[in-house]
């Protein structure tokens, strides 16, 4: 018994929890290092490594937020829309319609020369957004279905999903990098400690074990969490897209057509999978349900998304 509004609210709450978890992971990796340093007799008075880890995470998030959209569009070799082609003119019309429904400015529109149906949004917010669809999407979908897909993508823009996902991906990357560095540092520190034994004793060993566990687990957890955020945002974009057009069935039927085209989308790199309407890797992972397949995919199972949209349509009637 969930309506569109409830679902949006629940997804927003979940997303906050995910972000909090990320910051916690960064702190964990940093504190572990601080603990080992402290036990090793090096105490600068401030949690040096923790602050460093947070600053590093914040900086890499900032970097990818500014100027990330150009790189994304270029990597997909997207070209600006050509309004003299009737089909592309229709796309422009549909984007304008949905932008009016959402009360946001019309984003820039790009076409990706790829036969597989897919679409993605990029840009840091509604004022500076771009939307790209593949040629295959334009060929396979009718007007209403196109409107459904665009409403999903514009909801990503409107809900600040693009910004959020960029930050989450950058934080996950930062955690991976820091853990990697820590592992290398650990080898070095271990060698040094064996040469002049003594130092921390039991407490030091305990900290070291905790730290090792955290730097091994943190990147895995970060990856799983960032994928979970991505899946939450997909459900949210489906729900708020349907709210914009008041036509969940059109998006459901578009998703069916997209799912039926099982080929991967080679033009779209895996790095921006979380921005797409459906996983560009193609059918295999997106179709499967089950805890494990779910844990490692950017998108929820397409069958479940379709079922949820159908349920919304049913409740509206």
């Amino acid at each position, binding site marked *: 018994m969930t309506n569109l509004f409830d679902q949006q609210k629940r997804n927003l709450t979940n997303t906050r929890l995910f972000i909090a978890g990320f910051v916690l992971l960064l702190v964990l990796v940093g504190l572990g290092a601080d603990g080992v340093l402290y036990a090793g007799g090096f105490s600068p008075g401030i949690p040096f490594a923790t602050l460093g880890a947070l600053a590093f995470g914040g900086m890499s998030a900032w970097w990818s937020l500014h100027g990330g959209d150009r790189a994304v569009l270029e990597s997909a070799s997207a070209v600006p829309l050509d309004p003299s082609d*009737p089909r592309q*003119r*229709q796309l422009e*019309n*549909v984007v*304008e*319609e*949905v932008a*009016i*429904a*959402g*009360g946001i400015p019309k984003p820039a529109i790009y076409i990706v020369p790829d036969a597989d149906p897919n679409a993605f949004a990029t840009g840091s917010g509604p004022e500076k957004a771009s939307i790209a669809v593949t040629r295959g999407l334009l060929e396979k979908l009718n007007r209403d279905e196109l*409107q459904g897909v665009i409403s999903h993508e514009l909801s990503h823009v409107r809900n600040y999903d693009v910004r959020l996902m960029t930050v989450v991906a950058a934080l996950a990357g930062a955690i991976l990098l820091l853990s990697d560095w820590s592992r290398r540092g650990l080898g070095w520190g271990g060698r040094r400690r064996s040469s002049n034994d003594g130092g921390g004793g039991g407490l030091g060993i305990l900290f070291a074990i905790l730290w090792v566990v955290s730097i091994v687990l943190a990147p895995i957890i970060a990856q799983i969490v960032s994928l979970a955020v991505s899946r939450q945002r997909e459900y949210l974009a489906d729900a708020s897209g349907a709210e*914009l057009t*008041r036509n969940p069935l059109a998006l459901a039927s578009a998703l069916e057509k997209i799912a039926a085209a099982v080929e991967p989308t080679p033009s779209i790199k895996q790095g921006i999978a979380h921005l797409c309407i459906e996983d560009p890797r193609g059918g295999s992972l997106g179709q499967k349900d089950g805890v494990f397949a779910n844990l490692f995919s950017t998108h929820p199972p397409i069958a479940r998304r379709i079922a949820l949209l159908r349920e919304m349509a049913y409740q509206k009637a």
Partner: protein
Amino acid sequence: MAAIGGCLTLLVVIAVFGAIWAIWRYNNLISLRNQVGNGWKQIDVQLKRRHDLIPNLVAAVKGEMQFEQDTLEKVIQARNSAVAARGVADTADKENALTQTLSRLFALAENYPTLKANEQVKTLMEELSSTENRIGFARQFYNDIATRFNTAQQLFPDNLIAQTFHFQPVELYEIKDEAERAVPKVDLNVRSDQTKS
């Protein structure tokens, strides 16, 4: 003396907080009112677009649809009275009438395969149906924000501010029930449809 001083201080503090609260709520109402105005402007832009497109479409289909002169005439009439409409309720009324004559025209056009193959007509039809969607979405947006504005004026204690500064509730852009329910009729017997008028 000290007690009176304390009371005075308390009164001043209350007055200051009251003033800050009043300013905050007043600004909230003003911002909502501006958003409503903006939403209405959006509808207006799209209605204008519609009014500009219709004569072109009628001119483009006139040759082919010479047996539907009556319908075409009604579209033009409805368009002209919609252009002349003033105010939210009047505009909504006239535009609804126009929507009905238009959907009749669209339905009748289905009977002319040559029209559907005509590039110019196809382009105009696409532009016009996009405009219809935009009007619908702009109306949806306007009604949402107008409802929020009207509700904000009625809720206690904000209604005190609204009354003091003479805020007026705005009209919603409503579709009359009959207009909404009316399904464009695709009458196979076009003749009888015309004589009915």
